């Protein structure tokens, strides 16, 4: 019996569960839409949720695993949306195909261009770090927005927005689920690979990572470009889900919204990112239809407060002992139900309290050397 179960034990359920959950939910809704049909609002919600999951998971790679802040995620999405939409426009005129082929071509082109922008902006920006990188990515987002908003009518639609040939609404969300699966496959496998470990090493201590021979710039660039590519994918998906692409949608606040989803889901936690993206998108959309204005504005205050409280709770040095005593893992261990420690790997999840900004010299110097008794007094044994 144990022998049969042996290969399953080696599977990392932490990652596999994400594929299973997304695939099951996707299949469920696919069956529903083909058997009884789904209302327009549900389809719209599903499209939005899948798009946001792609955005959040890809931003999570930069913020959660690389440990750098990018405030231009909506900018990369904007590039993807405009380029993908334009390609789709051209294709629908020339080969009058509105099917899957034009979508795929638009997707590839949009993602590639967004990735190229990620490379162009990442190459200089990644020499900088922290606050500077945040501000450069923010500046990039604003530049992209301005350029597209002021383009001429016949290139990118100008201030009226780019009109895109809309995809058949009935099954667009299925493509969304497939795209989420692809995103998960690429990003989760990246994180689990050698490269992913290098990326998390950079987050934990950049100087130490460099000292061990990790090419910091290269890995930062890899994470940054992949994140930009998937932001572009989400952008192309957006342009297919909406009949017009307007630059004003992709503003700074959209980037902040995605960041809030990443932080609330737990930085460096893909499952959390998926759950928070789904929940927050659902709440936002439902609240907007349920309560117009009025009470809906309080949700922003609540999000902001949750964001601040989570960060302070997870990082404040004054709360360290409290955190160690009352975290979920310690409580689960006490119940003895989950009292198995996996051997082999250490946990990948970001432990932010352990990230030292400087190497603590005291800690380095005061290594306890346990001198074995026999070495200390070798002649004792003989006696």
């Amino acid at each position, binding site marked *: 019996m144990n022998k049969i179960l042996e290969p399953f034990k080696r599977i990392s359920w932490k990652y596999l569960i994400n594929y299973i959950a997304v695939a099951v939910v996707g299949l469920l809704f696919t069956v529903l839409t083909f058997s009884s049909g789904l209302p327009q609002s549900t389809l719209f919600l599903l499209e939005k949720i899948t798009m946001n999951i792609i955005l959040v998971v890809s931003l999570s790679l930069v*913020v959660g695993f690389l*440990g*750098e*802040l990018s*405030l231009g995620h909506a900018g990369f999405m904007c590039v993807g949306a405009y380029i993908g939409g334009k390609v789709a426009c051209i294709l629908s005129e020339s080969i009058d195909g509105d099917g899957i082929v034009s979508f795929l071509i638009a997707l590839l082109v949009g993602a590639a261009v967004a990735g190229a922008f990620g490379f162009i902006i990442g190459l*200089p*920006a990644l*020499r*900088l770090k*922290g*606050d*500077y990188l*945040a*501000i*450069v990515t*923010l*500046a*990039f987002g*604003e*530049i992209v927005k*301005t*350029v597209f*908003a*002021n383009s001429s009518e016949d290139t990118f639609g100008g201030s009226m927005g780019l009109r895109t040939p809309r995809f058949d609404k009935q099954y667009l969300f299925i493509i969304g689920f497939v795209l989420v699966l692809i995103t998960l496959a690429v990003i989760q496998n990246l994180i689990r690979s050698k490269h992913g470990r290098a990326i998390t090493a950079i987050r934990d201590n950049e*100087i130490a990572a460099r000292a061990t021979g990790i090419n910091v710039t290269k890995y930062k660039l890899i994470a940054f470009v992949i994140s930009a590519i998937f932001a572009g994918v989400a952008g192309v998906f957006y342009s297919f889900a909406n009949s017009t692409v307007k630059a004003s949608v992709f503003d*700074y606040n959209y980037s*902040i919204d995605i*960041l*809030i989803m990443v*932080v609330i889901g737990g930085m460096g936690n893909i499952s959390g990112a998926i759950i928070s993206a789904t929940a927050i998108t659902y709440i936002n959309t439902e609240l907007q239809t349920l309560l117009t204005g009025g009470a809906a*504005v*309080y949700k*922003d*205050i609540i*999000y*902001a*407060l949750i*964001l*601040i409280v989570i*960060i*302070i709770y*997870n*990082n*404040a*040095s*004054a*709360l360290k002992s409290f955190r160690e005593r009352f975290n979920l893992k310690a409580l689960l261990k006490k119940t003895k139900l989950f009292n198995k420690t996996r051997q082999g790997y250490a946990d990948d999840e970001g432990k*932010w*309290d352990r*990230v030292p*900004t*400087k*190497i603590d010299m005291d800690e380095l110097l005061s290594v306890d050397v346990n001198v074995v008794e026999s070495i200390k007094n070798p002649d004792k044994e003989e006696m």
Partner: protein
Amino acid sequence: MDFIITLVNGLSMGGTYAMIALGYTMVYGIAKMLNFAHGDIIMIGGYAILVGLSVNPLLAVLFSMLFCMLLGVLIERVAYRPLRGSSPLAVLITAIGVSYLLQSIILAIPQFGADTHYVVIIKDLGSLQIGEVLIGYDTIITLAITIVVMVSLTLFIKFTKTGRAMIAVSEDRDAARLMGINVNFIITLTFAIGSVLAAVAGFCSLLDTPWLEPYYGSLPGIKAFAAAVIGGIGSIPGAMLGGILLGIVECLCNSVQEIAPYTIAIEFIILILILLVKPTGILGKKRREKV
């Protein structure tokens, strides 16, 4: 003649940016963090003026300065102080959270909401004529305030004991503590000064663009941060230089019809280029990273 008017307008706008940039640069230099909420303090200051205007314009401005100072100190105390010494990313995200919080609080107050308010602090300012050049009094007031603020701030930092303590904290926090400087007090004071500067900048910018809305401060805030970076972050003369440069560039770009819509893009491209060529800015000092 048009060119001179544009230049004077640029100087005045640059003065406003310089005052915001001073707040950024002081907080960055001393607390080593990017205070994303700084731009929103300008916006809150604007609303404080709006509230106070029903009584008296002068009192409104004073009330706004006091309110912003208290708000800045409160934010530092509640949100930033617990995170001192933890990873820069955590502090940065908290600052963004505070900025988001301030915006959504204004949005949630029914009297303000998302509407645009037209704020007239001083009615019918008129303008001064020098030869053929016509300069508005609002421009002159802004320039005068900027000069007074900059001179007094420089004197304060150079010649008072507290000011020198600020320099000490910005250079080496631990050594400053060993010298008997109350580091927490100095940081709180920096936030207080920065927030008062933000309120003054809010007043100046309301003279120029009197349309107040919840996102009033976010773009000027980001631009002023760009100005602080261009001048060299952490350096007070750098913030002034960067702010005035940015103001002049903005007014020059706005005066040419073809490139006016791209003004923001041009400003940010300048920022990126400066960071590429000289990441420490024009007047910034290079700091080595120590392990």
